[in-house]
């Protein structure tokens, strides 16, 4: 047998893969040894992982080949940050295209692709991903984790999350983030909903990763926390994780079942086809999860505010018990309000009134938390720094978003503003001001730890804060007014009478985008600054 080029290529490919695998293993082992020392690196996996998850950790791509909690947290943080900028650019593209009533540079199909990408990636990728990241990173020190097991499961679930988000990006679905039935079932490549099945698979992978991670969080909190922390003195951040985890485990599987039905429907439409009158069935199953996910996005932010506020005001939280009660009530009540997304879908008057009432009631625990924070700030001495600015802005934005939420929770008002920009303004106030703002506040707090003792550039951080705060106000504020004037959302063009609102919102969106660009530049600039700060941070000193 003579020389075979194919065989040589095949053999060398196998050899290169083997060498790369060995190098990866070697670098991982090397990094572990650097972190743990010679003695620690010979420990069994679970014990060394437990040691690792109690140590301070810097940003490093080695996190992708290690599976202790802190590494998983860094993985999620990096991924969700990338997804945030992908989805944010999509959002700014939509804003700019809406400068004139006739779409300027986006065709309706392109607009719908950007709309779907923005919605799915922001909610599933950024909100859920950043929460998973922060929780994986902070929970072990918050509850003094004594056994960091299940690292392999967490790692597999991270890769599922990553593949799911890639599915969402590559699917180019146009069905918006809820994948209602007639939208997903479109046929040709030029039409809406192309490859919606891929987006559905992506959503299912992300939900699977999220649910499994939440089970792991509950195991950490209830089984593996240190005995020195009784359940009555569990940190409020841990309580918020408990609340979120139960909420996700109770509701996400319903949506996964609906997504499974829907994927089958794309092949053989029997479950949710409109003519059978069951399109509403999908909507119900979807919103059973679709409403809790917005609470999933805000409850951990509540927990972070509860942890951060006392540090910046110099006293204890005003009422620990009220905080716990508020978080647990949010868990229970927010599972019962999903029907307010379907006021115009014909659930019937009786159901509409029930869901309207529960939507009013869910304002009570939210207000409990807000008053708790205000009382904490009132009784302490507020120290203003960048994370505190984000917190104050987040509380104000949450109040506005919450009040408008109660307004549209009324059946009669919702008849008028359903499907208008008023709804978009309502949840952008909350998700931009509270969820995103508090996540960036946490990143600023963790910055010295993540970068090994560097300080972030404070003027640039303030520019980031003011641009994003003002941008949120301009964009969502004009949306709110325009929405009550009847400006419809989710469309590539609009009537000329709404141009003032749309142009103002476009300016606000561009200001927002510049703000986050400043954050990125600040991150790059400050990471190469001198090592002058302590690597301690106030979120992890709870465990000390």
């Amino acid at each position, binding site marked *: 047998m003579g020389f075979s080029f194919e065989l040589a290529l095949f053999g060398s490919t196998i050899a290169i893969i083997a060498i790369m695998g060995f190098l990866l293993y070697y670098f991982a082992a090397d990094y572990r040894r650097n972190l743990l020392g010679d003695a620690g690196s010979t420990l069994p996996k679970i014990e060394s992982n437990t040691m690792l998850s109690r140590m301070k950790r*810097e*940003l*490093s*791509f080695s996190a992708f080949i290690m599976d202790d909690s802190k590494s998983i947290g860094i993985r999620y943080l*990096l991924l969700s*940050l*990338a997804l945030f*900028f*992908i989805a*944010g*650019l*999509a959002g700014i*593209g939509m804003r700019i295209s809406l400068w004139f009533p006739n779409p300027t540079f986006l*065709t309706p*199909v*392109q607009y719908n*692709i*950007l709309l779907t*990408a923005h919605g799915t990636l922001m909610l599933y990728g950024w909100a859920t991903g950043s929460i998973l990241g922060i929780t994986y990173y902070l929970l072990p020190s918050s509850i003094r984790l004594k056994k960091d097991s299940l690292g392999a499961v967490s790692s597999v679930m991270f890769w599922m999350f990553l593949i799911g988000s890639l599915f969402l*990006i*590559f699917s*180019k679905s146009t069905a918006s983030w809820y994948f209602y039935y*007639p939208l997903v*079932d*479109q*046929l*040709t*490549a*030029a*039409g*809406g909903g*192309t*490859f919606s099945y891929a987006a559905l698979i992506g959503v299912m992978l992300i939900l699977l990763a999220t649910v499994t991670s939440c089970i792991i969080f509950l195991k950490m909190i209830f089984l593996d926390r240190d005995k020195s922390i009784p359940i009555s003195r569990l940190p409020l951040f841990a309580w918020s994780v408990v609340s979120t985890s139960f909420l996700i485990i109770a509701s996400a599987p319903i949506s996964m079942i609906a997504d499974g039905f829907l994927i089958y429907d794309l092949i053989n*439409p029997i479950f949710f*086809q*409109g*003519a059978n*009158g069951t*399109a*509403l069935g999908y909507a119900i199953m979807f919103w059973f999860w679709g409403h809790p996910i917005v609470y999933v996005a805000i409850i951990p932010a509540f927990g972070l505010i509860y942890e951060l506020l006392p540090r910046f005001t110099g006293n204890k939280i005003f009422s620990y018990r009220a905080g716990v009660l508020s978080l647990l009530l949010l868990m229970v009540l927010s599972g019962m309000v999903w029907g307010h997304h379907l006021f115009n*879908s*014909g659930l*019937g*008057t*009786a159901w509409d009134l029930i869901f309207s009432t529960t939507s009013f009631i869910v304002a009570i625990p939210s207000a409990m938390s807000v008053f708790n924070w205000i009382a904490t700030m009132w009784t302490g001495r507020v120290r203003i720094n960048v994370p505190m600015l984000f917190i104050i802005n987040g509380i104000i934005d949450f109040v506005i978003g919450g009040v408008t939420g109660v307004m549209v929770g009324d059946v009669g008002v919702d008849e008028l503003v359903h499907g208008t920009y008023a709804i978009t303004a309502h949840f952008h106030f909350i998700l931009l001001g509270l969820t995103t703002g508090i996540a960036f506040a946490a990143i600023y707090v963790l910055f010295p730890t*993540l*970068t*090994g003792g560097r300080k972030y550039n404070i003027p640039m951080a303030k520019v980031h804060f003011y641009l994003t705060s003002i941008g949120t106000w301009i964009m969502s504020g004009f949306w709110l007014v325009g929405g009550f004037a009847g400006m419809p959302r989710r469309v590539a063009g609009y009537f000329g009478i709404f141009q003032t609102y749309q142009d103002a919102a476009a300016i606000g969106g561009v200001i927002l985008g510049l703000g986050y660009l400043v954050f*990125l530049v600040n*991150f*790059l600039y400050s*990471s*190469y600054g001198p090592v002058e700060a302590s690597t301690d941070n106030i979120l992890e000193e709870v465990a000390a």
Partner: protein
Amino acid sequence: MRKSTPIAIFVVVILAAGGSFIWFMEQPGGPSTAGTQGSYNSTQLIVLYANALGWDYNSSHPNPTLYEKTHVLLEFKVIEQDNLPHTFTINPGPNESASNAILSVNIPPVTGTVTWVNWSFSNPGTFTYWCEVHPETMVGLLVINATTSNTTNASVAPSAPFTCTCANYQPQPALTPFFIRDVNEEFR
């Protein structure tokens, strides 16, 4: 922290955001041809029932040949009739060709759904309108004749409008959507 980590994160984030945006911009099915529409001064309504057995299958003229004029906005009112997926596709020439279709619009598979497709032709010629899902049965000719002037202000009378004079033509009953209910139903 390694020296290269922050710059790598920065580059990855920028590349991911920009690359994704370029990827989103590339419309599936190729660029839209919506820009090649002709100008128009009048409109013409054409009603078509989408049925897998043929366009307007229940009328006496299934798959009617339509005679229309250039520079007239043709408003196709496509009404779903049989719960099956259809497309409304138009391509130049007397034969079906999906590759050089002028337009292709999905008809939602819910009986009674009305899909509006507006188009105005700038050049005369013979065109084919058909359904990509049922190319054997749902296919008809669309003949576009030149208007001598495209500045006519009066509404142009159709040369061969689709009219239903047939006896066996059953107008579709008005669809009652499942979500329209008597709001007081629950309290009776």
